[in-house]
């Protein structure tokens, strides 16, 4: 637990609970007029010089959205959102057209530097030791797409990826350069008529990442997108589309932060994954949006639709998420197990502190034969937070031999927080085997005292116990990010014990 110790030390130096990413970048930006209308949709589409089919697609989504009301079934509470009081598009004003990374506004470069995200093509992330027997970190590379408010500001290692045949670029660029590929897959996993927030996203999405891995290719490096909300009163509506063609393999990670603000900001993203025959997609998230202050003021509303389609036989999609930020999280990364023998996985750590509300989980739809899925969810509630796991496992009539194993553990810290588990299990054929295990426990005074009697501080003791609790899931993250996530978790829980 070296990372845990470092974190504790760093906290000791910097004082009490500080959201490390709460700063703001002062930069001029180009915004759409406030509010949402067909004109806003047209404005965004025009800004991006999009083809006619996409504008039509957006308008269709917008019209679908108008017919629907916000969902209320989640165990979260917030005042009504005024959708006319949000800017739907904000982009840093470029001083001139960019042709290389050196031309990016130095203020933005500085922002990413502060966040610890290398926009230059450096191979090593700081402080990372190679795993025993693993490749030395100097040879490990991570390609990064950095999305600042509504646009992508930089993508690294594009050329090297292209050599392998991998397309990794902002989705707005992909729409221009690979329109057929985008049109073929966009909206096929999360259609324009999907849920309320997904419809909104389809209408106004501005940027996000696009990945295509050609048949038989193992993507030579980790791909990663870093989302940053900077502008005030702005929603971020990114759209990510990842396609793993037959027999290919890709691992992708997204990270998120936002400045510290009193008002709530909306983040309604859509992520679509498509895995064809024998392909594998591993999608990891480290979500650290601003969670609001200790009185529950401010913070991001993270209302996100993520869905993967195991379209081909023997395909596999794996979601791993570490959720520590956001005032409210409403998020259910799902797998449609369409291909025979396909497999879906969901590994989650959701931590809530202060007044945070989390309603998160997964949906595993078993459609094909001999499909299998595995769910491990670790929820940790501290402070006055509410943490709900909501998960669906279903097998339709043709999903012969479907198998699911779900483990859902909750850990409570203190006595003012709450944890809930809401599993939905639907088996429509008799050969399905679904198992659900759930536990709820508290970090007991006895365990803490045991650690403290051995010389650990209160914070170290909590950190140690929590890291033990989530270890199984942490191990699923790419190594570099596991270290970072571990630090993040310790910071999130700072001050959770009175």
């Amino acid at each position: 637990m070296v990372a845990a110790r470092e974190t504790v030390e760093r906290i000791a130096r910097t004082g009490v609970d500080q959201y490390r990413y709460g700063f703001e970048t002062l930069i001029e930006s180009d915004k759409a007029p406030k509010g949402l209308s067909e004109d806003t949709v047209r404005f965004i589409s025009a800004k991006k010089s999009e083809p006619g089919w996409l504008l039509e697609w957006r308008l269709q989504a917008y019209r679908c959205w108008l017919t629907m009301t916000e969902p209320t079934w989640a165990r979260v509470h917030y005042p009504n959102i005024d959708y006319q009081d949000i800017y739907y598009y904000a982009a840093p004003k470029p001083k001139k057209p960019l042709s290389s990374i050196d031309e990016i506004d130095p203020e933005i470069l500085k922002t990413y530097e502060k966040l610890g995200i290398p926009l230059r093509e450096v191979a090593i992330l700081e402080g990372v030791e190679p795993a025993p027997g693993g490749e030395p970190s100097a040879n490990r590379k991570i390609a990064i797409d950095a999305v600042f408010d509504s646009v992508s500001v930089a993508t690294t290692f594009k050329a090297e990826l292209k050599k392998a045949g991998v397309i990794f670029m902002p989705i707005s660029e992909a729409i221009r350069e690979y329109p057929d590929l985008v049109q073929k897959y966009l909206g096929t996993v999360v259609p324009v008529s999907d849920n309320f927030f997904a419809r909104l996203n389809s209408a106004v999405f501005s940027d996000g990442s696009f990945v295509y891995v050609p048949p038989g290719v193992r993507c030579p490096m980790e791909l990663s997108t870093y989302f940053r909300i900077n502008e005030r009163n702005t929603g971020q509506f990114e759209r990510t589309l990842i396609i793993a063609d037959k027999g290919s393999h890709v691992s992708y990670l997204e990270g998120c932060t936002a400045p510290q603000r009193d008002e709530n900001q909306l983040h309604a993203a859509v992520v679509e994954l498509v895995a064809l025959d024998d392909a594998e997609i591993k999608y990891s998230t480290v979500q650290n949006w601003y969670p609001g202050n200790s009185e529950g003021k401010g913070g991001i509303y993270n209302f996100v639709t993520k869905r993967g389609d195991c379209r081909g036989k023997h395909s596999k999609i794996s979601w791993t998420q570490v959720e520590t930020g956001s005032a409210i999280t409403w998020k259910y990364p799902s797998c449609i197990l369409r291909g025979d023998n396909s497999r879906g996985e969901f590994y989650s750590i959701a931590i809530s502190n202060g007044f945070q509300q989390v309603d998160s989980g997964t949906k595993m739809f078993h459609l094909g034969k001999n499909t299998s899925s595995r769910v491990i969810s670790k929820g940790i509630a501290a402070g006055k937070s509410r943490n709900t796991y909501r998960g669906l496992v279903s097998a339709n009539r043709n999903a012969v031999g479907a198998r699911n194993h779900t483990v859902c553990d909750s850990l409570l810290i203190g006595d003012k927080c709450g944890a809930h588990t809401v599993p939905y299990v639907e088996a429509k054929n008799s050969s399905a085997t679904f198992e659900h295990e759930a536990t709820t426990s508290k970090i007991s005074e006895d365990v803490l005292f045991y650690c403290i009697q051995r010389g650990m501080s209160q914070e170290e003791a909590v950190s140690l116990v929590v890291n033990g609790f989530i270890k199984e899931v942490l191990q699923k993250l790419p190594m570099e990010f596991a270290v970072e996530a571990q630090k993040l978790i310790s910071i999130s829980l700072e001050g959770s014990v009175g």
Partner: protein
Amino acid sequence: MPLLEVRNLHVCVEGREILHGLDLTVNAGKVHAIMGPNGSGKSTLSHVITGKPGYQITAGRLLFKGEDLLAMRPDQRAAKGLFLAFQYPVEIPGVTTMNFLRTALNAQRKARGQSGYSTPHFLKKARTAAKQLNIPQSMLKRGVNVGFSGGEKKRNEILQMALFEPDLCILDEIDSGLDIDALRIVADGINAMRSPDRSMIMITHYQRLLNYVVPDVVHVMSKGRVVKSGDKQLALELEASGYAQFEDAA
């Protein structure tokens, strides 16, 4: 100067007084045994000395190496050289014993202004100590006390004691739940740690442990006080006649 000095200690739990003016002096290098019936306040004493929350100290003094223990947090007391072998060691899933030992040891060293042990140095130290207690390497890789037998848990307590090298070890019913072979291993581990600088307080119900770890001083506790002190003969007397004779004295 005595290593530990307890004077007129009064302790309440939820408004009810458990210790009624307890006195105890432990000098460096001595092994004390505290015996007494259930509910006499033996475990409470061990918790109060080590600083477990939930106890109100309403009167009295607690000095360790001449310093006021009551002014120190429990982790500071540990770093000062105070160790409690728990009667019921807790389980910590997902945290390997090795990781736990290292985190704890380095926390103590840091509090004392010493540098942390390097990984190889620590591993060597831990493995050597484990070997002496007949603890297999595989146990060090398992979650702290998770799935350990009663004997393994107690051996794990002694392992920690050996690694941390405390000045005062309080052993709360270290003999409970041990078969005769396990008791011998644990007792050997304790005896190996006896030294002119290190003191021990063994809390036990039974004389049996004292055959293996022979105490310098034996105390009898009853109803929240030390009612009689003597040498090892006292323990043998108790074994023969029981605690009833002291009930009135208290």
